[in-house]
């Protein structure tokens, strides 16, 4: 394959990581971190396949998948925003619960359903979202009063409260949006990448790669989308990297995880010297 082919394949395979990462970026911009992304993706993948297999069409499946992610993120909203439980603990609990619930849904027998073919109208819309959403979110975050409010809450919660900003409402909205986007991401993995099938471990930790991409893109919508795309490029070029380096093919799956750890280290070193780049303080 030539470079252009890899770039195009990476876009198709990168859709779930980009969508999930953009959703998580919104959550972290509002000053919270939802570590449940991987679980929300897995749960929505299972739910979307089950609904599509029952209804016979991927569109209700896609909607159900988005709502499945939203449902899990609502647990996070209630417990973290409402009850003020530890956000890290709740996030990891959602990650683990989501993976288990996904297998539980699949155990009902609805593991194969209709799929969304490459190049179909629906597929093109989903791919286009990865280009439109970063720009739309950039405009919302930096050019509208809502975006200013959201970012202000992420930078300093106590000042935002003092100024009368709707901290809890804004966070509920961003967390729900993040859940919805992780849900669509999971449904996309099942419908497009794995031909309408669900299997245990379908996400393969991509939810975590998405959370890593948020930091790599430095919480900027365009940056996050590019970082997630770069991770996806790394995933699709794995076989090539392995054969170039003379590695056995079975060891190849480790590359994106090691690359993200290295990239996080580099980003941390580079940004430490620039005090003007202040990230929101979710983690």
């Amino acid at each position, binding site marked *: 394959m030539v470079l252009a082919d890899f770039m195009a394949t990476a876009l198709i395979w990168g859709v779930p990581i980009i969508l999930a990462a953009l959703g998580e970026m919104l959550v972290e911009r509002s000053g919270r971190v939802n570590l449940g992304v991987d679980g929300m993706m897995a749960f929505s993948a299972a739910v979307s396949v089950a609904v599509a297999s029952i209804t016979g069409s991927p569109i209700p499946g896609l909607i159900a998948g988005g709502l499945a992610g939203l449902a899990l993120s609502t647990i996070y909203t209630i417990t973290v925003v409402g*009850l003020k439980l530890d956000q890290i603990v709740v996030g990891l*609990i959602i990650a683990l619960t989501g*993976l288990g619930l996904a*297998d*539980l849904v699949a155990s009902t027998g609805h593991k194969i359903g209709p799929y969304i073919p490459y190049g179909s109208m629906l597929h093109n819309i989903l791919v286009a979202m990865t280009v439109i959403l970063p720009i739309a979110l950039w405009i919302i975050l930096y050019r509208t009063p809502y975006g200013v409010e959201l970012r202000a809450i992420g930078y300093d919660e106590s000042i935002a409260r003092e100024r009368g900003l709707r901290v809890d409402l804004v966070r509920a909205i961003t967390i729900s949006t993040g859940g919805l986007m992780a849900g669509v991401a999971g449904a996309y993995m099942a419908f497009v990448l794995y031909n309408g099938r669900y299997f245990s471990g379908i996400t393969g930790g991509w939810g*975590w790669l998405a959370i890593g991409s948020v930091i790599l893109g430095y919480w900027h919508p365009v940056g996050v989308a590019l970082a997630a795309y770069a991770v996806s490029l790394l995933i699709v070029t794995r076989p090539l990297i392995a054969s170039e380096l003379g590695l056995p093919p079975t060891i190849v799956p480790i590359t994106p*995880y090691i690359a993200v*750890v290295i990239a*996080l280290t580099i980003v941390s*070193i580079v940004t430490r010297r620039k005090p003007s780049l202040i990230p929101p303080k979710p983690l």
Partner: protein
Amino acid sequence: MLALKVDSKQVVGVTLGLVLGLTLALILGSISPAGFRGILDSLVWVYTNPVPHVFTLTLLSPIACAAVGLTVAYRAGFITVGSEGQILLGAIVTLWLVEYSGLNLNPQVAIPISILLGGFTGALLGLIVGVLRVYFNVNEILASLMLNYVILYVSNHLASGPWRVGPFAITRSVGEEYRLGPLVMVFVAVVLAFLCWFLLTRSSLGLAIKVYGRAPRVAETYGLNPKAIVLSVALLSGFTSGVGGALMMLGFQHSLSPMSVSPGYGYMGVLVSWLSSNNPLVVLPASWFFSSILVLGRSLQASGLPIGYVLAVQAVIVLSVMIARRLSGRWW
């Protein structure tokens, strides 16, 4: 969350949380082919029949070993979830030592050495995450999770490639003479739990860990070295998880084969640590409880209950207990 004191409100909260969690577990399980009835019968069987108790004690130690180390790490505010990968790595090096190193050690020598070797490699993996956090300010949750996936795929690689024997992707099995019984494994876990408890309550490092975890700035003002604290808890939690991995390999796992998801004992350790409010001694009964849920889940696998149910139920129980504890201060 870090307090050791027990009061009546906490007890009410924990009890209500457990009841709520188990009820949710029954409801969730009823959508699987095993059904509500199957889960309920199995729940009764796990606690009334003597046979499952042996399984529970066998599976307990990796969970408990990981959890006791994590209690110390979490008290220092080092939120690692690397126990999953550390357990698997400890298991890998143990298998290497007894089956692939060619040393043919006497079991009385090989067993203690493999437990220590598992511990040290786990500690080394923990140290990587600790160094990244201390010197490069990399988030330890993400770094440790990424390493979990790296170790999972390394294990899959070994099982399907270099260590494969025969037509199926599976490694050699730990020889009969090296295998451990449940009592030895539980003994190791209990020893580790008491060591961690002693460290937290009776040593100056333990005091430093608790102070740093609650108020990092105060700790620095009083001249404590935050880097040394974080690195030592990273090493310690890695060590106990690695020991758990060695026990897992010698006690019941015996061989490796490719997996789509990690075995989950490390994540269970994380949950147990939270459930026991980071108290190393409470970890022991809590791991026994979670291990019994694992036995329940395994007994129903043939009836179509997916094994992922176990982690989901355990996570739901921890969340229910957390919610009940939080509300118990407000409502009653």
